[in-house]
Protein backbone atom coordinates (compact mmCIF):
# COMPACT_ATOMS: atom_id res chain seq x y z
CA UNK A 1 0.00 0.00 0.00
CA UNK A 2 1.47 3.30 -1.03
CA UNK A 3 0.58 6.83 0.01
CA UNK A 4 -1.24 7.18 -3.29
CA UNK A 5 -3.75 4.54 -2.21
CA UNK A 6 -4.81 6.76 0.64
CA UNK A 7 -5.67 9.75 -1.57
CA UNK A 8 -9.40 9.02 -1.94
CA UNK A 9 -9.72 8.89 1.85
CA UNK A 10 -8.37 12.38 2.53
CA UNK A 11 -11.10 14.54 0.97
CA UNK A 12 -13.83 12.52 2.68
CA UNK A 13 -12.18 12.84 6.08
CA UNK A 14 -11.58 16.52 5.46
CA UNK A 15 -15.25 17.15 4.72
CA UNK A 16 -16.32 15.17 7.78
CA UNK A 17 -13.80 17.01 9.95
CA UNK A 18 -14.87 20.46 8.77
CA UNK A 19 -18.60 19.71 8.96
CA UNK A 20 -19.01 20.15 12.75
CA UNK A 21 -17.41 23.58 12.60
CA UNK A 22 -20.00 24.94 10.17
CA UNK A 23 -22.36 25.89 12.96
CA UNK A 24 -24.43 22.69 13.20
CA UNK A 25 -26.97 22.52 16.00
CA UNK A 26 -26.36 20.35 19.05
CA UNK A 27 -28.78 17.64 17.93
CA UNK A 28 -27.17 17.47 14.49
CA UNK A 29 -23.75 17.14 16.12
CA UNK A 30 -25.10 14.29 18.24
CA UNK A 31 -26.53 12.64 15.14
CA UNK A 32 -23.17 13.01 13.42
CA UNK A 33 -21.38 11.40 16.37
CA UNK A 34 -23.86 8.54 16.36
CA UNK A 35 -23.41 8.11 12.60
CA UNK A 36 -19.66 7.85 13.08
CA UNK A 37 -20.03 5.29 15.87
CA UNK A 38 -22.34 3.11 13.77
CA UNK A 39 -20.11 3.60 10.72
CA UNK A 40 -17.13 2.38 12.72
CA UNK A 41 -19.03 -0.68 13.95
CA UNK A 42 -20.13 -1.30 10.36
CA UNK A 43 -16.55 -0.99 9.11
CA UNK A 44 -15.70 -3.73 11.56
CA UNK A 45 -18.63 -5.82 10.31
CA UNK A 46 -17.54 -5.22 6.72
CA UNK A 47 -14.07 -6.70 7.32
CA UNK A 48 -15.58 -10.06 8.23
CA UNK A 49 -18.95 -9.94 6.48
CA UNK A 50 -18.00 -8.05 3.32
CA UNK A 51 -14.43 -9.13 2.63
CA UNK A 52 -14.63 -12.50 4.36
CA UNK A 53 -18.21 -13.41 3.40
CA UNK A 54 -18.95 -14.38 7.00
CA UNK A 55 -22.14 -12.55 7.94
CA UNK A 56 -22.33 -12.14 11.70
CA UNK A 57 -25.53 -11.42 13.61
CA UNK A 58 -23.63 -10.85 16.83
CA UNK A 59 -21.19 -8.00 16.48
CA UNK A 60 -22.75 -6.67 19.69
CA UNK A 61 -20.42 -9.14 21.43
CA UNK A 62 -17.44 -7.00 20.38
CA UNK A 63 -19.16 -3.63 20.68
CA UNK A 64 -20.37 -4.41 24.17
CA UNK A 65 -17.04 -5.79 25.32
CA UNK A 66 -15.27 -2.62 24.20
CA UNK A 67 -17.93 -0.44 25.78
CA UNK A 68 -18.03 -2.32 29.08
CA UNK A 69 -14.25 -2.63 29.32
CA UNK A 70 -13.87 1.13 28.97
CA UNK A 71 -16.60 1.86 31.51
CA UNK A 72 -15.60 -0.76 34.07
CA UNK A 73 -11.87 -0.08 33.95
CA UNK A 74 -12.46 3.64 34.49
CA UNK A 75 -15.12 3.48 37.17
CA UNK A 76 -14.05 0.44 39.15
CA UNK A 77 -10.28 0.41 38.71
CA UNK A 78 -9.49 4.06 38.13
CA UNK A 79 -7.71 3.35 34.87
CA UNK A 80 -7.01 6.32 32.62
CA UNK A 81 -9.58 6.69 29.81
CA UNK A 82 -7.04 6.39 27.02
CA UNK A 83 -5.56 3.25 28.53
CA UNK A 84 -9.11 1.96 28.93
CA UNK A 85 -9.70 2.65 25.24
CA UNK A 86 -6.71 0.52 24.31
CA UNK A 87 -7.77 -2.18 26.75
CA UNK A 88 -11.32 -2.13 25.36
CA UNK A 89 -10.09 -2.64 21.82
CA UNK A 90 -7.72 -5.41 22.91
CA UNK A 91 -10.39 -7.21 24.94
CA UNK A 92 -12.90 -6.85 22.12
CA UNK A 93 -10.46 -8.40 19.66
CA UNK A 94 -9.73 -11.21 22.11
CA UNK A 95 -13.45 -12.00 22.27
CA UNK A 96 -13.41 -12.01 18.47
CA UNK A 97 -10.42 -14.32 18.31
CA UNK A 98 -12.02 -16.63 20.88
CA UNK A 99 -15.33 -16.88 19.01
CA UNK A 100 -13.40 -17.31 15.75
CA UNK A 101 -11.25 -20.06 17.18
CA UNK A 102 -14.28 -22.02 18.35
CA UNK A 103 -16.50 -21.53 15.31
CA UNK A 104 -13.94 -21.79 12.51
CA UNK A 105 -12.44 -24.90 14.06
CA UNK A 106 -15.89 -26.46 13.72
CA UNK A 107 -16.11 -25.22 10.14
CA UNK A 108 -19.21 -23.08 10.74
CA UNK A 109 -20.17 -20.63 8.02
CA UNK A 110 -23.21 -19.14 6.31
CA UNK A 111 -26.37 -19.23 8.39
CA UNK A 112 -24.78 -21.34 11.09
CA UNK A 113 -22.13 -18.71 11.64
CA UNK A 114 -24.74 -15.96 11.77
CA UNK A 115 -26.79 -17.84 14.35
CA UNK A 116 -23.91 -18.84 16.59
CA UNK A 117 -22.58 -15.27 16.73
CA UNK A 118 -26.05 -14.12 17.72
CA UNK A 119 -26.10 -16.75 20.46
CA UNK A 120 -22.70 -15.61 21.77
CA UNK A 121 -23.90 -12.01 21.94
CA UNK A 122 -27.07 -13.08 23.75
CA UNK A 123 -25.08 -15.11 26.27
CA UNK A 124 -22.95 -12.04 27.00
CA UNK A 125 -26.07 -9.89 27.26
CA UNK A 126 -27.69 -12.18 29.82
CA UNK A 127 -24.49 -12.46 31.85
CA UNK A 128 -23.94 -8.68 31.78
CA UNK A 129 -27.54 -8.15 32.80
CA UNK A 130 -27.21 -10.19 35.95
CA UNK A 131 -23.62 -9.86 37.10
CA UNK A 132 -22.36 -7.38 39.63
CA UNK A 133 -19.34 -5.92 37.87
CA UNK A 134 -21.45 -4.55 35.00
CA UNK A 135 -23.94 -2.95 37.37
CA UNK A 136 -26.55 -5.55 36.41
CA UNK A 137 -29.88 -4.31 35.13
CA UNK A 138 -29.27 -0.80 36.51
CA UNK A 139 -26.27 -0.31 34.24
CA UNK A 140 -23.10 1.65 34.74
CA UNK A 141 -22.58 5.41 34.78
CA UNK A 142 -19.23 6.96 33.98
CA UNK A 143 -18.98 10.14 36.10
CA UNK A 144 -18.66 13.33 34.12
CA UNK A 145 -15.14 14.70 34.32
CA UNK A 146 -14.44 16.75 31.22
CA UNK A 147 -10.92 16.89 29.92
CA UNK A 148 -8.87 15.57 27.03
CA UNK A 149 -6.98 13.24 29.35
CA UNK A 150 -10.31 11.67 30.39
CA UNK A 151 -11.50 11.30 26.79
CA UNK A 152 -14.54 13.41 27.65
CA UNK A 153 -14.94 16.44 25.50
CA UNK A 154 -17.33 19.15 26.60
CA UNK A 155 -17.35 20.66 23.11
CA UNK A 156 -19.34 18.21 20.97
CA UNK A 157 -17.52 19.39 17.86
CA UNK A 158 -14.26 17.93 19.11
CA UNK A 159 -15.93 14.64 19.89
CA UNK A 160 -17.12 14.53 16.28
CA UNK A 161 -13.52 15.11 15.27
CA UNK A 162 -12.35 12.24 17.47
CA UNK A 163 -14.99 9.91 16.00
CA UNK A 164 -14.06 10.99 12.47
CA UNK A 165 -10.42 10.14 13.17
CA UNK A 166 -11.48 6.66 14.31
CA UNK A 167 -13.56 6.22 11.15
CA UNK A 168 -10.45 7.33 9.25
CA UNK A 169 -8.52 4.49 10.88
CA UNK A 170 -11.27 2.16 9.69
CA UNK A 171 -11.01 3.53 6.16
CA UNK A 172 -7.25 3.04 6.10
CA UNK A 173 -7.59 -0.53 7.36
CA UNK A 174 -10.22 -1.27 4.71
CA UNK A 175 -8.00 0.27 2.03
CA UNK A 176 -5.18 -1.93 3.28
CA UNK A 177 -7.45 -4.96 2.78
CA UNK A 178 -7.94 -3.87 -0.83
CA UNK A 179 -4.23 -3.66 -1.41
CA UNK A 180 -2.60 -6.30 0.78
CA UNK A 181 -1.95 -10.00 0.44
CA UNK A 182 -3.99 -10.62 3.56
CA UNK A 183 -7.00 -8.95 1.95
CA UNK A 184 -6.54 -10.96 -1.23
CA UNK A 185 -6.41 -14.19 0.79
CA UNK A 186 -9.55 -13.19 2.64
CA UNK A 187 -11.43 -12.46 -0.58
CA UNK A 188 -10.17 -15.74 -2.05
CA UNK A 189 -11.60 -17.58 0.95
CA UNK A 190 -14.92 -15.78 0.52
CA UNK A 191 -15.13 -16.77 -3.12
CA UNK A 192 -14.06 -20.38 -2.68
CA UNK A 193 -12.62 -21.66 0.54
CA UNK A 194 -11.47 -25.02 -0.80
CA UNK A 195 -9.75 -23.50 -3.79
CA UNK A 196 -8.00 -20.98 -1.55
CA UNK A 197 -6.81 -23.77 0.70
CA UNK A 198 -5.59 -25.78 -2.27
CA UNK A 199 -3.55 -22.77 -3.40
CA UNK A 200 -1.79 -22.72 -0.05
CA UNK A 201 -3.75 -20.06 1.82
CA UNK A 202 -3.78 -20.74 5.53
CA UNK A 203 -7.55 -20.47 5.78
CA UNK A 204 -7.78 -20.76 9.55
CA UNK A 205 -5.21 -18.03 10.24
CA UNK A 206 -6.64 -15.61 7.69
CA UNK A 207 -10.18 -16.04 9.03
CA UNK A 208 -8.93 -15.62 12.60
CA UNK A 209 -7.08 -12.48 11.59
CA UNK A 210 -10.21 -11.15 9.92
CA UNK A 211 -12.52 -11.72 12.88
CA UNK A 212 -9.94 -10.23 15.27
CA UNK A 213 -9.52 -7.12 13.14
CA UNK A 214 -13.27 -6.89 12.66
CA UNK A 215 -13.87 -7.19 16.40
CA UNK A 216 -11.21 -4.57 17.16
CA UNK A 217 -12.91 -1.92 15.01
CA UNK A 218 -16.35 -2.68 16.42
CA UNK A 219 -14.94 -2.66 19.97
CA UNK A 220 -13.49 0.78 19.28
CA UNK A 221 -16.98 1.89 18.32
CA UNK A 222 -18.15 0.54 21.68
CA UNK A 223 -15.51 2.52 23.55
CA UNK A 224 -16.56 5.68 21.73
CA UNK A 225 -20.16 4.96 22.68
CA UNK A 226 -19.23 4.77 26.36
CA UNK A 227 -17.19 7.97 26.21
CA UNK A 228 -19.95 9.82 24.39
CA UNK A 229 -23.01 8.71 26.35
CA UNK A 230 -21.26 7.93 29.67
CA UNK A 231 -23.96 5.36 30.39
CA UNK A 232 -24.24 1.69 29.58
CA UNK A 233 -26.52 -1.22 30.30
CA UNK A 234 -26.68 -4.76 28.98
CA UNK A 235 -29.32 -4.05 26.34
CA UNK A 236 -27.38 -1.12 24.97
CA UNK A 237 -23.97 -2.79 25.02
CA UNK A 238 -24.83 -6.37 24.02
CA UNK A 239 -28.33 -5.83 22.62
CA UNK A 240 -29.17 -6.90 19.07
CA UNK A 241 -29.62 -3.29 17.90
CA UNK A 242 -25.94 -2.67 17.23
CA UNK A 243 -25.42 -6.04 15.52
CA UNK A 244 -28.33 -5.17 13.24
CA UNK A 245 -27.31 -1.57 12.54
CA UNK A 246 -23.69 -2.52 11.82
CA UNK A 247 -24.90 -5.20 9.41
CA UNK A 248 -27.47 -2.87 7.82
CA UNK A 249 -25.03 -0.03 7.28
CA UNK A 250 -22.42 -2.32 5.74
CA UNK A 251 -24.88 -4.05 3.41
CA UNK A 252 -26.88 -1.02 2.36
CA UNK A 253 -23.70 0.96 1.83
CA UNK A 254 -21.93 -1.75 -0.11
CA UNK A 255 -20.34 -4.98 1.05
CA UNK A 256 -16.61 -5.25 0.69
CA UNK A 257 -16.18 -1.64 -0.38
CA UNK A 258 -14.11 0.97 1.37
CA UNK A 259 -16.73 3.69 1.77
CA UNK A 260 -19.74 1.37 1.96
CA UNK A 261 -20.15 1.23 5.75
CA UNK A 262 -19.73 4.99 6.08
CA UNK A 263 -22.23 5.72 3.31
CA UNK A 264 -24.62 3.14 4.74
CA UNK A 265 -24.47 4.54 8.27
CA UNK A 266 -25.02 8.12 7.07
CA UNK A 267 -27.87 7.18 4.73
CA UNK A 268 -29.63 4.81 7.15
CA UNK A 269 -29.43 7.00 10.24
CA UNK A 270 -30.28 10.03 8.12
CA UNK A 271 -33.32 8.24 6.73
CA UNK A 272 -34.22 7.10 10.24
CA UNK A 273 -34.05 10.66 11.51
CA UNK A 274 -36.21 11.92 8.66
CA UNK A 275 -38.87 9.24 9.21
CA UNK A 276 -38.86 10.03 12.92
CA UNK A 277 -39.46 13.63 12.01
CA UNK A 278 -42.34 12.79 9.66
CA UNK A 279 -43.99 10.11 11.77
CA UNK A 280 -43.87 12.26 14.88
CA UNK A 281 -41.49 9.93 16.65
CA UNK A 282 -43.62 6.75 16.65
CA UNK A 283 -41.28 4.08 18.05
CA UNK A 284 -40.37 1.40 15.55
CA UNK A 285 -41.18 3.40 12.45
CA UNK A 286 -37.55 4.13 11.58
CA UNK A 287 -36.61 0.47 11.98
CA UNK A 288 -39.57 -0.51 9.82
CA UNK A 289 -38.10 1.69 7.11
CA UNK A 290 -34.64 0.16 7.68
CA UNK A 291 -36.10 -3.31 7.18
CA UNK A 292 -37.72 -2.34 3.90
CA UNK A 293 -34.49 -0.68 2.73
CA UNK A 294 -32.56 -3.86 3.61
CA UNK A 295 -34.91 -6.10 1.60
CA UNK A 296 -34.85 -3.74 -1.36
CA UNK A 297 -31.05 -3.51 -1.23
CA UNK A 298 -30.60 -7.28 -1.16
CA UNK A 299 -33.16 -7.69 -3.94
CA UNK A 300 -32.10 -5.00 -6.36
CA UNK A 301 -28.65 -3.73 -5.40
CA UNK A 302 -26.66 -6.56 -3.81
CA UNK A 303 -23.55 -4.40 -3.99
CA UNK A 304 -25.19 -1.61 -2.05
CA UNK A 305 -25.18 2.11 -2.67
CA UNK A 306 -21.43 2.13 -3.31
CA UNK A 307 -22.06 -0.59 -5.89
CA UNK A 308 -24.68 1.50 -7.67
CA UNK A 309 -22.46 4.56 -7.86
CA UNK A 310 -19.49 2.46 -8.98
CA UNK A 311 -21.60 0.89 -11.71
CA UNK A 312 -22.78 4.20 -13.12
CA UNK A 313 -19.25 5.57 -12.81
CA UNK A 314 -17.90 2.61 -14.71
CA UNK A 315 -20.54 2.96 -17.39
CA UNK A 316 -19.49 6.57 -17.87
CA UNK A 317 -15.80 5.82 -18.04
CA UNK A 318 -16.27 2.66 -20.10
CA UNK A 319 -14.36 0.34 -17.85
CA UNK A 320 -11.32 2.55 -17.35
CA UNK A 321 -11.52 1.85 -13.65
CA UNK A 322 -10.79 -1.78 -14.43
CA UNK A 323 -12.15 -4.26 -11.90
CA UNK A 324 -10.75 -2.88 -8.71
CA UNK A 325 -14.03 -3.03 -6.85
CA UNK A 326 -15.61 -6.11 -5.40
CA UNK A 327 -18.18 -7.66 -7.64
CA UNK A 328 -18.93 -10.76 -5.67
CA UNK A 329 -21.08 -9.35 -2.91
CA UNK A 330 -21.72 -11.56 0.04
CA UNK A 331 -22.02 -15.02 -1.42
CA UNK A 332 -21.09 -17.69 1.01
Amino acid sequence: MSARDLFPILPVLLVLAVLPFLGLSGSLLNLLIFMMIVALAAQGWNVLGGYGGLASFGHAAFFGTGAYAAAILQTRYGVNAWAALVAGVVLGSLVGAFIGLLTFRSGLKGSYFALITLAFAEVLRIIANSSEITGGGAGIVVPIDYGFENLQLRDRRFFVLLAVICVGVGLVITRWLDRSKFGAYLIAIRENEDAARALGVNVMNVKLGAITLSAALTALAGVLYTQNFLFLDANVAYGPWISIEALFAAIVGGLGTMFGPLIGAVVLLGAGEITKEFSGGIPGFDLLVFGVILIITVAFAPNGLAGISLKSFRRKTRGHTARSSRDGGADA
Partner: protein
Amino acid sequence: MYPIPIIAEALINGLMLGAVYALVAVGLTLIYGVLHIVNFAHGAFLTLSMFGIWLLWEHAGLDPYLSILMLTPIMFGLGYGVQRFIIGPAGHGRDNSILLVTLGISIVIENGLLVVFKSDTRTIATDYGFRVIEIGPLLLSWPRAVGFVATMATAVIVWLILNRTDVGKAIRAVAKEKLGARLVGIDVNHIYAMTFALGSACLAVAAGLLMPVFYVNPQTGGAFVLVAFTIVVLGGMGSVTGALLGGLLIGVVEAASSLFLGDSLGQLGIFVLFILVLLFKPTGLFGARI
Protein backbone atom coordinates in the same frame (compact mmCIF):
# COMPACT_ATOMS: atom_id res chain seq x y z
CA MET B 1 -32.67 -28.82 47.25
CA TYR B 2 -36.33 -28.85 46.21
CA PRO B 3 -38.67 -31.68 47.15
CA ILE B 4 -39.20 -34.26 44.45
CA PRO B 5 -42.83 -33.34 43.54
CA ILE B 6 -41.86 -29.72 42.83
CA ILE B 7 -39.04 -30.84 40.56
CA ALA B 8 -41.28 -33.36 38.83
CA GLU B 9 -43.99 -30.74 38.38
CA ALA B 10 -41.55 -28.23 36.92
CA LEU B 11 -40.13 -30.82 34.55
CA ILE B 12 -43.53 -32.05 33.36
CA ASN B 13 -44.75 -28.48 32.86
CA GLY B 14 -41.50 -27.81 31.01
CA LEU B 15 -42.15 -30.86 28.87
CA MET B 16 -45.57 -29.51 27.98
CA LEU B 17 -44.31 -26.04 27.12
CA GLY B 18 -41.58 -27.80 25.17
CA ALA B 19 -44.30 -29.36 23.06
CA VAL B 20 -45.35 -25.93 21.85
CA TYR B 21 -41.71 -25.02 21.26
CA ALA B 22 -41.54 -28.20 19.22
CA LEU B 23 -44.43 -27.05 17.08
CA VAL B 24 -42.66 -23.77 16.33
CA ALA B 25 -39.53 -25.74 15.53
CA VAL B 26 -41.36 -28.21 13.27
CA GLY B 27 -42.34 -25.33 10.99
CA LEU B 28 -38.80 -24.00 10.98
CA THR B 29 -37.16 -27.33 10.29
CA LEU B 30 -39.65 -28.12 7.53
CA ILE B 31 -38.71 -24.89 5.78
CA TYR B 32 -35.02 -25.61 6.29
CA GLY B 33 -35.28 -29.21 5.13
CA VAL B 34 -36.98 -28.35 1.85
CA LEU B 35 -35.80 -24.86 0.94
CA HIS B 36 -32.42 -25.13 2.71
CA ILE B 37 -32.90 -21.65 4.07
CA VAL B 38 -32.71 -20.37 7.61
CA ASN B 39 -35.93 -18.48 8.09
CA PHE B 40 -35.02 -15.76 10.51
CA ALA B 41 -38.53 -14.32 10.24
CA HIS B 42 -40.09 -17.39 11.85
CA GLY B 43 -40.21 -15.74 15.27
CA ALA B 44 -41.82 -12.61 13.85
CA PHE B 45 -44.45 -14.76 12.14
CA LEU B 46 -45.19 -16.34 15.50
CA THR B 47 -45.57 -12.89 17.08
CA LEU B 48 -47.89 -11.94 14.25
CA SER B 49 -50.00 -15.05 14.84
CA MET B 50 -50.13 -14.38 18.57
CA PHE B 51 -51.37 -10.86 17.92
CA GLY B 52 -53.94 -12.38 15.57
CA ILE B 53 -55.18 -14.64 18.37
CA TRP B 54 -55.20 -11.71 20.77
CA LEU B 55 -57.15 -9.51 18.32
CA LEU B 56 -59.77 -12.19 17.77
CA TRP B 57 -60.15 -12.57 21.53
CA GLU B 58 -60.23 -8.87 22.28
CA HIS B 59 -62.53 -7.72 19.51
CA ALA B 60 -64.56 -10.78 18.57
CA GLY B 61 -64.49 -12.60 21.88
CA LEU B 62 -63.26 -15.71 20.15
CA ASP B 63 -61.69 -18.43 22.27
CA PRO B 64 -57.97 -18.83 21.44
CA TYR B 65 -58.36 -22.51 20.65
CA LEU B 66 -61.22 -21.72 18.30
CA SER B 67 -59.27 -18.89 16.68
CA ILE B 68 -56.68 -21.41 15.55
CA LEU B 69 -59.15 -22.68 12.96
CA MET B 70 -59.51 -19.19 11.54
CA LEU B 71 -55.89 -18.14 11.77
CA THR B 72 -54.32 -21.26 10.27
CA PRO B 73 -55.51 -20.62 6.70
CA ILE B 74 -54.56 -16.94 7.00
CA MET B 75 -51.00 -17.76 8.07
CA PHE B 76 -50.85 -20.45 5.40
CA GLY B 77 -51.72 -17.87 2.74
CA LEU B 78 -49.36 -15.28 4.18
CA GLY B 79 -46.49 -17.75 4.30
CA TYR B 80 -47.15 -18.75 0.71
CA GLY B 81 -47.16 -15.14 -0.48
CA VAL B 82 -44.08 -14.10 1.46
CA GLN B 83 -41.97 -16.95 0.08
CA ARG B 84 -43.34 -16.77 -3.46
CA PHE B 85 -43.24 -13.01 -3.92
CA ILE B 86 -40.62 -11.68 -1.52
CA ILE B 87 -38.05 -14.20 -0.30
CA GLY B 88 -37.86 -16.18 -3.54
CA PRO B 89 -37.27 -13.28 -5.93
CA ALA B 90 -35.27 -11.10 -3.52
CA GLY B 91 -32.96 -13.84 -2.26
CA HIS B 92 -31.45 -14.71 -5.65
CA GLY B 93 -30.98 -18.27 -4.33
CA ARG B 94 -27.97 -17.23 -2.28
CA ASP B 95 -27.64 -18.40 1.29
CA ASN B 96 -26.55 -15.08 2.80
CA SER B 97 -28.98 -13.01 0.75
CA ILE B 98 -31.95 -15.17 1.79
CA LEU B 99 -30.89 -14.97 5.42
CA LEU B 100 -30.74 -11.19 5.15
CA VAL B 101 -34.12 -10.95 3.43
CA THR B 102 -35.73 -12.99 6.19
CA LEU B 103 -33.97 -10.78 8.74
CA GLY B 104 -35.40 -7.75 6.94
CA ILE B 105 -38.89 -9.28 7.00
CA SER B 106 -38.65 -10.01 10.71
CA ILE B 107 -37.60 -6.42 11.39
CA VAL B 108 -40.45 -5.08 9.27
CA ILE B 109 -43.04 -7.28 11.03
CA GLU B 110 -41.71 -6.63 14.54
CA ASN B 111 -41.57 -2.90 14.09
CA GLY B 112 -44.82 -2.79 12.15
CA LEU B 113 -46.43 -4.42 15.18
CA LEU B 114 -44.63 -1.94 17.43
CA VAL B 115 -46.04 0.96 15.43
CA VAL B 116 -49.59 -0.44 15.56
CA PHE B 117 -49.74 -1.99 19.03
CA LYS B 118 -46.98 -0.08 20.90
CA SER B 119 -44.68 -2.07 23.15
CA ASP B 120 -47.40 -3.00 25.67
CA THR B 121 -47.57 -6.61 26.73
CA ARG B 122 -50.95 -8.26 26.09
CA THR B 123 -52.41 -11.31 27.70
CA ILE B 124 -55.59 -13.30 27.37
CA ALA B 125 -57.44 -14.08 30.58
CA THR B 126 -59.42 -17.23 29.85
CA ASP B 127 -61.27 -18.97 32.65
CA TYR B 128 -59.17 -22.08 32.09
CA GLY B 129 -55.83 -20.22 32.08
CA PHE B 130 -55.01 -21.25 35.65
CA ARG B 131 -56.97 -24.50 35.79
CA VAL B 132 -54.90 -27.43 37.01
CA ILE B 133 -55.12 -31.17 36.74
CA GLU B 134 -54.31 -33.18 39.85
CA ILE B 135 -52.43 -36.38 39.27
CA GLY B 136 -51.45 -37.86 42.61
CA PRO B 137 -49.25 -35.26 44.33
CA LEU B 138 -48.69 -33.36 41.08
CA LEU B 139 -50.50 -30.23 39.94
CA LEU B 140 -50.30 -29.82 36.17
CA SER B 141 -51.39 -26.83 34.13
CA TRP B 142 -54.51 -27.63 32.10
CA PRO B 143 -53.80 -25.31 29.11
CA ARG B 144 -50.29 -26.74 28.88
CA ALA B 145 -51.69 -30.24 28.80
CA VAL B 146 -54.01 -29.15 25.99
CA GLY B 147 -50.95 -27.67 24.24
CA PHE B 148 -49.13 -30.95 24.54
CA VAL B 149 -51.97 -33.03 23.11
CA ALA B 150 -52.74 -30.55 20.34
CA THR B 151 -49.07 -30.38 19.34
CA MET B 152 -48.91 -34.12 18.97
CA ALA B 153 -52.11 -34.04 16.92
CA THR B 154 -50.69 -31.30 14.69
CA ALA B 155 -47.47 -33.25 14.25
CA VAL B 156 -49.51 -36.24 13.09
CA ILE B 157 -51.39 -34.03 10.63
CA VAL B 158 -48.10 -32.64 9.26
CA TRP B 159 -46.81 -36.19 8.97
CA LEU B 160 -49.97 -37.24 7.10
CA ILE B 161 -49.70 -34.26 4.74
CA LEU B 162 -46.07 -35.09 4.01
CA ASN B 163 -46.60 -38.80 3.57
CA ARG B 164 -50.15 -39.31 2.35
CA THR B 165 -50.85 -36.46 -0.08
CA ASP B 166 -49.59 -35.53 -3.54
CA VAL B 167 -48.33 -32.17 -2.28
CA GLY B 168 -46.46 -33.97 0.48
CA LYS B 169 -44.93 -36.33 -2.03
CA ALA B 170 -43.82 -33.35 -4.12
CA ILE B 171 -42.41 -31.63 -1.04
CA ARG B 172 -40.37 -34.69 -0.17
CA ALA B 173 -39.21 -34.98 -3.76
CA VAL B 174 -38.03 -31.36 -3.85
CA ALA B 175 -36.29 -31.78 -0.50
CA LYS B 176 -34.40 -34.82 -1.78
CA GLU B 177 -33.56 -33.73 -5.31
CA LYS B 178 -34.59 -30.33 -6.58
CA LEU B 179 -33.43 -30.78 -10.14
CA GLY B 180 -34.97 -34.21 -10.47
CA ALA B 181 -38.25 -32.90 -9.12
CA ARG B 182 -38.23 -30.13 -11.69
CA LEU B 183 -37.51 -32.65 -14.45
CA VAL B 184 -40.57 -34.72 -13.64
CA GLY B 185 -42.74 -31.63 -13.84
CA ILE B 186 -42.98 -30.40 -10.26
CA ASP B 187 -43.27 -26.63 -9.98
CA VAL B 188 -40.43 -26.14 -7.52
CA ASN B 189 -41.23 -22.52 -6.69
CA HIS B 190 -44.82 -23.50 -5.90
CA ILE B 191 -43.65 -26.34 -3.66
CA TYR B 192 -41.18 -24.02 -1.91
CA ALA B 193 -44.03 -21.63 -1.19
CA MET B 194 -46.32 -24.49 -0.10
CA THR B 195 -43.67 -25.68 2.36
CA PHE B 196 -43.19 -22.18 3.69
CA ALA B 197 -46.97 -21.91 4.01
CA LEU B 198 -47.17 -25.19 5.91
CA GLY B 199 -44.40 -24.07 8.26
CA SER B 200 -46.19 -20.77 8.87
CA ALA B 201 -49.51 -22.54 9.47
CA CYS B 202 -47.86 -24.51 12.30
CA LEU B 203 -47.22 -21.13 13.93
CA ALA B 204 -50.90 -20.24 13.95
CA VAL B 205 -51.57 -23.43 15.90
CA ALA B 206 -48.64 -22.76 18.24
CA ALA B 207 -49.86 -19.20 18.83
CA GLY B 208 -53.33 -20.38 19.79
CA LEU B 209 -51.88 -22.91 22.21
CA LEU B 210 -49.46 -20.38 23.70
CA MET B 211 -51.74 -17.40 24.27
CA PRO B 212 -53.71 -18.81 27.24
CA VAL B 213 -50.45 -19.34 29.17
CA PHE B 214 -48.16 -16.75 27.65
CA TYR B 215 -48.12 -13.06 26.75
CA VAL B 216 -47.40 -11.22 23.55
CA ASN B 217 -45.59 -8.01 22.71
CA PRO B 218 -43.82 -7.12 19.47
CA GLN B 219 -40.58 -8.68 20.75
CA THR B 220 -42.03 -12.00 21.91
CA GLY B 221 -41.02 -13.88 18.77
CA GLY B 222 -37.41 -12.79 19.18
CA ALA B 223 -37.23 -14.81 22.38
CA PHE B 224 -38.63 -17.82 20.58
CA VAL B 225 -36.54 -17.65 17.46
CA LEU B 226 -33.26 -18.68 19.09
CA VAL B 227 -35.05 -21.32 21.11
CA ALA B 228 -36.58 -22.67 17.93
CA PHE B 229 -33.22 -22.64 16.16
CA THR B 230 -31.68 -24.44 19.10
CA ILE B 231 -34.33 -27.12 18.81
CA VAL B 232 -33.91 -27.40 15.06
CA VAL B 233 -30.15 -27.71 15.32
CA LEU B 234 -30.47 -30.14 18.20
CA GLY B 235 -32.91 -32.29 16.28
CA GLY B 236 -30.88 -32.17 13.09
CA MET B 237 -31.67 -29.46 10.52
CA GLY B 238 -34.61 -30.67 8.45
CA SER B 239 -35.72 -33.50 10.69
CA VAL B 240 -39.36 -33.23 11.81
CA THR B 241 -39.08 -36.04 14.38
CA GLY B 242 -35.86 -34.46 15.59
CA ALA B 243 -37.63 -31.13 16.05
CA LEU B 244 -40.37 -32.78 18.10
CA LEU B 245 -37.95 -34.57 20.40
CA GLY B 246 -35.65 -31.54 20.53
CA GLY B 247 -38.55 -29.31 21.54
CA LEU B 248 -39.52 -31.56 24.41
CA LEU B 249 -35.90 -31.73 25.54
CA ILE B 250 -35.49 -27.95 25.43
CA GLY B 251 -38.68 -27.46 27.41
CA VAL B 252 -37.31 -29.70 30.14
CA VAL B 253 -33.86 -28.05 30.05
CA GLU B 254 -35.43 -24.61 30.35
CA ALA B 255 -37.69 -25.65 33.21
CA ALA B 256 -34.78 -27.27 35.04
CA SER B 257 -32.41 -24.34 34.59
CA SER B 258 -35.12 -21.82 35.56
CA LEU B 259 -35.81 -23.85 38.68
CA PHE B 260 -32.19 -24.07 39.73
CA LEU B 261 -30.70 -20.85 38.31
CA GLY B 262 -33.62 -18.43 38.27
CA ASP B 263 -35.55 -17.09 35.30
CA SER B 264 -32.98 -14.77 33.74
CA LEU B 265 -30.18 -17.31 33.84
CA GLY B 266 -32.59 -20.04 32.70
CA GLN B 267 -32.45 -18.57 29.20
CA LEU B 268 -28.69 -18.85 29.37
CA GLY B 269 -28.93 -22.64 29.48
CA ILE B 270 -30.62 -22.68 26.08
CA PHE B 271 -28.07 -20.45 24.36
CA VAL B 272 -25.14 -22.34 25.83
CA LEU B 273 -26.69 -25.61 24.70
CA PHE B 274 -27.21 -24.10 21.24
CA ILE B 275 -23.56 -23.04 20.99
CA LEU B 276 -22.30 -26.40 22.24
CA VAL B 277 -24.43 -28.40 19.80
CA LEU B 278 -23.41 -26.21 16.86
CA LEU B 279 -19.75 -26.47 17.79
CA PHE B 280 -19.53 -30.15 18.58
CA LYS B 281 -22.45 -31.87 16.90
CA PRO B 282 -23.77 -29.63 14.11
CA THR B 283 -25.63 -32.56 12.54
CA GLY B 284 -27.82 -32.72 15.62
CA LEU B 285 -28.64 -35.52 17.97
CA PHE B 286 -31.11 -37.25 15.67
CA GLY B 287 -29.79 -36.34 12.24
CA ALA B 288 -32.54 -37.94 10.16
CA ARG B 289 -33.99 -35.99 7.22
CA ILE B 290 -37.61 -35.74 6.19
